[in-house]
Each structure stands twice: as C-alpha cells, then as structure tokens.
C-alpha cells in the first residue's frame, strides 16, 4: 500500500477502475449512437431504453427460463436487435425524409413508452442480478484489488468496440456502409440494397446497446430508469467527441469515464457533473467536438 497525492493507492485505482467500467458503457453506447447516426441521420433517443431492455432481458431469461449470463450475452442482443429492426421498419422508415428533429422526438416518445411499460410491471426499484459463478472473486494486484467481473467487462467492451471499428473502417462490408452514408443513391445504383442495410445497421446499433445492458446488469441494479439516467450523459459524450468518427466515439467514451473516476477521488461533489462541465468547455474552445468534422 502506498500513497499518490496523499490518496491511498487502493482508493485511487479503485475509482480509476470504476471510471474505466463507466467508460466502457459510455463507449459502447456512444459507439452505437454514432453508427446509427451515420447511417440513419437520427439521434436514437431510444438507445437508453434499449440498454435497459438488454439488462431486463438478461434478468428475465434467468428468472423465468433459468438461462444463465453466458446465454444471455448471445441471445439478448439478438432479441433486442430484432425489436430494433421492427421499430426501424414500423416507425423510423416513415420519417427518413423529414427534419432530423422529428427523429429525435419520435425516438424520445418510444423511449417513454418502453420505460413506462417496464415501470408498470417492475416498479421503479431495482432488481438484483448475480455475477456469473465463473467470474466471481478477484485478484490482488499489489496496488489494488481487481474483481474478475469488472476486468471482464473492460476487456469485453474493448474487444467489441475495436471489433466494430475494424468492421466499419477496414472491411468490404464496412466500405459499403460508409459509401451508403455518403451517397445512398449512387450505392443503390451499384445494386446494393441500401434500405435493408439501413435497417440492419439500426438493428446492430440497438444490439450493441442491449449487449451493454447485459454486461451492466450484474454491476448496477436492473431498473426501468437505468437507461434514461445514462443516455443523457452519453449525449454529452457524443457532443464532446463529435459523431463524425467511430474511433472518436470509443476513445471519448473511455477517456470521460476515467476523468469521471478521477474526479470522484479529488472532488467527489463534482463527479456527476464533470462530464457536462467538460462539454461546455469543449463547446467554447472547439465547437465541432474533439473528433468532429464541421457542424
């Protein structure tokens, strides 16, 4: 045990770890928002509700069907992703030519519906979700104690984030996607089914949110308002990073999580407002965002 700036290492690294965990979720969620925005030009306000659905779906699979965490990790993103595809086909498709603001308002309405339904059945108190047996416990690293589950969350979200970045920036499918973002008409002329690609992209973005929800279930309580709490912070993250770049969304997410964790050590009172304060600062100094291109 030693001290840094008069703070015991255990506390410092503990908060840093917590920050990294939060950062993992910020990164996964802002990545999903950026992917959806790139393709559909919509800010998906439902994203928080879909993250909450992911956590609840994991909880329900365990409670009613006895299916464990590892099954949920695969099944839940697919299930919730399918609900996303339905939403895209039923609602978002109809407003694709309208002002972006309508997309925001529509997805906000959908978020209210989903959150309201879950509150009806589960109330506003949280449901506990056990950490899977394989990831119980932790290891002592000398300067801090590292719980296994938290290490797993950070590692898994890093893999998923960079996997997504690789798929979009470095593969053929990704190049179709990027081309369709730039000029959908031209890409359609080459015989690529752009509307289907749009639908699947939305489904994929939603699945990312659901995956984040499953991973969050054992850490935070599973509650209907867990989505609306986090989505507003993620919006601030997205404003800071700018949505032009996938890598920007990932890096900003992790970085802001760490900053938040450090703030908890040094100025605990400011820990939940620090991200908003950074947003103000960035807007004043660099209005386009750290990785943004134009407005």
């Amino acid at each position, binding site marked *: 045990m030693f001290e840094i700036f008069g703070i015991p290492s255990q506390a410092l690294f503990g908060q840093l770890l917590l920050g990294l965990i939060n950062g993992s979720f910020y990164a996964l969620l802002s990545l999903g928002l950026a992917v959806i925005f790139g393709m559909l030009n919509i*800010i998906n306000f439902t994203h928080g509700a879909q993250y909450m659905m992911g956590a609840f779906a994991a909880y329900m699979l365990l409670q009613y069907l006895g299916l464990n965490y590892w099954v949920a990790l695969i099944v839940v993103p697919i299930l919730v992703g399918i609900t996303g595809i339905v939403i895209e086909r039923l*609602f978002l498709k*109809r*407003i694709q030519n*309208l002002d*972006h*603001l*309508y997309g*925001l*308002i*529509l997805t*906000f*309405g*959908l*978020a*209210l*519906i*989903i*959150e*309201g*339904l879950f*509150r*009806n059945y589960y109330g506003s108190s949280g449901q506990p979700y056990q950490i899977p047996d394989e990831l119980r416990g932790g290891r002592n690293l000398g300067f801090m104690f590292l719980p296994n589950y938290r290490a797993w969350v950070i590692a898994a979200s890093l893999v998923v984030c960079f996997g997504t970045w690789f798929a979009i920036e470095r593969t053929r499918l990704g190049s179709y996607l990027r081309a369709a973002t730039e000029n959908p008409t031209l890409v359609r002329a080459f015989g690529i089914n752009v509307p289907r690609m749009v639908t699947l992209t939305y489904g994929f973005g939603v699945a990312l949110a659901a995956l984040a929800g499953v991973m969050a279930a054992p850490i935070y309580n599973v509650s209907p308002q867990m989505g*609306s709490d986090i989505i*507003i*912070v993620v*919006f*601030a993250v*997205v*404003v800071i990073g700018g949505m032009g770049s996938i890598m920007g969304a990932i890096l900003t997410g992790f970085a802001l999580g760490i900053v938040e964790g450090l703030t908890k050590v040094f100025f605990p*009172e400011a820990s*939940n*407002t620090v991200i*908003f*304060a950074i*947003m*103000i600062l960035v*807007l*004043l100094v660099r*209005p386009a965002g750290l990785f943004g291109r134009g*407005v």
Partner: protein
Amino acid sequence: MASAADAPVLPGHRDTPRGLAVAAIVMILFLIVAPFVLYPIFLMKALCFALFACAFNLLLGYVGLLSFGHALYFGWASYVAAYAAKSWGLSPELAILAGTATAAGLGIIAGIVAIRRQGIYFAMITLALAQMMYLVALRVKFTGGEDGIQAVPRGHLFGVFDLGVEMNMYVFVTLLVLAALFLIYRIIDSPFGEVLRAIRENEQRAISLGYRTDRYKLVAFVLSATLAGLAGATKALVFQLASLTDVHWTMSGEVVLMTLVGGLGTVFGPIVGAFLIVAMENYLAPFGQWVLVIQGGIFVVCVLVFRRGIVGELAHRLRVRL
C-alpha cells in the same frame, strides 16, 4: 370566417389577423367563464404551462431550434421564486421577478454555449445542460433536495391584494399570462420575428443578407428562457411548491409534447396543447405509470401522422392564421 377563407395564407404574414383576433376573444371569454365551472387551481396550472409552451414554441416554432432542456429555466425560476417568497419574505411580484431574472441569467449562459452548434447537437446540448443543473439542484441545500420548497406563502400583491384568496390569485395569474402571451405575439409579429423566421427557413441566406444570425438566435433563446422562467416562477406561487419535478428532463419532454400536440409555430397551438395535456394528466393520475406510456404514444402518433398539431390542422383547414 368565410371572408377570411379568401385571403391568401402566407405564414407569418401581417394581413391575416382575423383568425387570431377571433381566437383571442374566444380564449378571453373562456378564461372569464371557466373559473365558475372548473377548478381555478387547474386553470392556473394550465395557464402557467400554456405560457411555458408558448415560450418554448418561440424557439422551436419560429427559429427552428429544438431545446430539450427548457425545464432548466422553468424549474430554477420556480426554485428561486419560492425561496425568495419564503425565506427572504419578498412580495409575490418581486419573488416572480427574482425567479424570472434567474431564468434570464441562466438563459444567457446556456444560450452562449448551445448556440455554437445546430440541429440535433443543439437539442443534445440543451438537454445535457439541463441535466447538469438538475444534478446541482439535487445537491445544493436551498432547493430542499427531495422535499423541494414547500408551503411557499403567496403573500399580498403590491401589498394590497391577498393572493391567498383563490379568485384574486386566478385574476392575477390570468392577467400576467395574457400579458406575457401578448408580448410573445408582438415578438413574433415584429421585424425581429421576421428575421427569426428567415433564419429558420434558411440560415445561410440570412447570413448572406447581412444578418448576424448568432445574435438573433441568442436573443430569441434568452427571451424564450426568460418567459419560461416567468411561467415557472408563477407556478411556484400557484402551487406554493417548487420541486425536483420542475427541473427534471421529463418536464422538458412535456413542454415539447404540449407544443407538438397543439401545433408547432402556431400562435394558439401551445396554449391548446398545454390545456389538453394538463387535463389529460389530471384524469390519468390514478393510472400511475401509464401516463408515461400514453405520453410516449402521443409523441409517436403526432410525429408519424399529425405533424401540424390540432391548431395547425384547424388553421390549415380554415385557411386562416391561428
């Protein structure tokens, strides 16, 4: 209104005020008769929200800026007015003034930050700023945390009229809100309002015509925040309560809903929307969380098939400006 039907319908044009005049008279008659039929407290609540929605509409309907954080001005003005009336013992008119001035100050700061981005980013920034100030309200002492500021005295208006008497309060709130609504109408009907519409339609062109659009947007933003604050401060005295509900993001969503239901960019739409939504919440209160689901449903329906809103649709059918 047969003759008005012949007039060309130009949005924002000065020659078609007849529909507006008729609607204004109908509204004033309603407000005179209503307190004898409906609960004055319900009417006062609806009036405060009508002003809130009209202030919001000033920004969204006429400049095209969607603020998703108007609860910030409404709620903080409400807190400051309640605190001024209760702890400082200020008279009601000064308490409301203090709340409104707070909203104006917050509007200037938030405006300077938010105006730097457009469209969808603007909405996210205003939402984030409002959430930040919600968290501050949760933490600082004077707001009373979860309890809010309760039992706010209504006091004597100008030291003469006892606002504890329900009818006195009703007359005061009605006159105040009507005056503010008239002010909003004068703003959107002025040359300044024309420039705002020009910015909404095509900001680049407005810039090329030599308008400093950022300044116009900031002024509109501050006006909107100030008037939203006036609504919040008045609401604090009506209910004798300022609470976290008023600064929460659901309140920001509610004002979007009222404006959308009534009709974006119409003069009377937000008023009709506010009365409808407040009435709906009164009747649905026993159903608890279903209110959230129904609100969400109304949002979805409005965006998909009813984008003109009630008053907008009426105005379109009758070919008048409302």
